[in-house]
């Protein structure tokens, strides 16, 4: 007698999942092997018991709830399933990393700017901007003010 049928192959035979050649070989073997026939019977009974268990149907209220949630519109009904407790720390970390990197970059830029020319330019423009006190009296400019064209009412408004 040839060796017993390999277990997974026996299950595949039971499920009709074997190609014709191995199936024929198993049929031939079982014609002379009571042990393999008994094992096949046992597996068949188990399969029958499992497949005859009553099928569970989706409860009507669950189906209705799923339909309502889907139809409820603007906010995706599966949104509550997203997990803010995961995204909140990730967002905070991203903001912190961005802030630190920006700060480091800004600090480096400050170090690179030469301050001396800026200070010299500031001093020069400050000196040039000085105006003598006499020049700040409006009556000294009456002639020039009188020569100005009258503004129209519309312009004033």
């Amino acid at each position, binding site marked *: 007698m040839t060796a017993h049928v390999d*277990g*997974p*192959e*026996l*299950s*595949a035979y039971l*499920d009709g*999942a074997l190609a014709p050649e191995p199936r024929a070989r198993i049929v031939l073997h079982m014609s002379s092997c009571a042990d393999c026939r*008994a*094992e096949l*019977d*046992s*597996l068949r*009974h*188990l*399969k*029958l*018991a*499992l*497949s*005859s*268990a*009553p*099928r*569970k*149907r*989706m*409860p009507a209220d*669950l*189906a209705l709830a*799923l*339909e309502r949630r*889907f*139809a409820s519109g603007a906010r*995706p*009904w*599966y949104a509550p*399933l997203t997990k803010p407790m995961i995204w909140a720390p990730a967002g905070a970390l991203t903001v912190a990393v961005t802030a630190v990197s920006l700060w480091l970059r800004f600090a480096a830029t400050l170090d690179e700017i030469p301050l001396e020319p800026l200070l010299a330019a500031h001093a020069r423009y400050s000196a040039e901007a000085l105006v003598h006190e006499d020049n700040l009296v409006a009556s000294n400019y009456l002639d020039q003010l009188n020569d100005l064209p009258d503004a129209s009412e519309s312009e004033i408004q």
Partner: protein
Amino acid sequence: MEPEAFADLLRQSGDKAYNFAYRLAGNEQDARDLVQEAFARALGHIGSYDPSRAFGSWLLRILHNIFLDGTRRLAHRRTVSLDAPAPVEDASWEDILPAKDMSAADELIRCESIDMIQLALERLPPHYKAAVVLCDVEGMSYDDIARIMKAPVGTIRSRIHQGRLLARKAYEELERSGGIRQ
């Protein structure tokens, strides 16, 4: 997606998804949660759905992944391998494979309580349980099961057979210990 299209998908796949979830989880509340999350994820990733495949199979695959994710979290706490045939205590493969006692298997078809079968299923490691449920309860082909479980057909064939042996062994143990009334 239009609400009518969603209602169609629900009609086509809802019962199958719920039955699969119930057989995996073993209770109604967990089955409801599994189904709700499976539909949520399916619709959230509807863009990655291949319309040439059955929506139901795709949904079961998502549901199976959710179930495994939950099981993994538990497994980490208990340090149990998903593939380990541990639930049948003190059982070696030598004990399981030869099927020395046929009477318990014969008893299955005249079993007074379907709950015994469900209890036996619940004792299986997750991968074996899913393979057996998809094959024997849902009546799916090995190719479809391989797609749902993302495993080669040879692996599926092995899981189905070993899962059946473990279910048989679990049933025998339940019988010896007084069944569900223990």
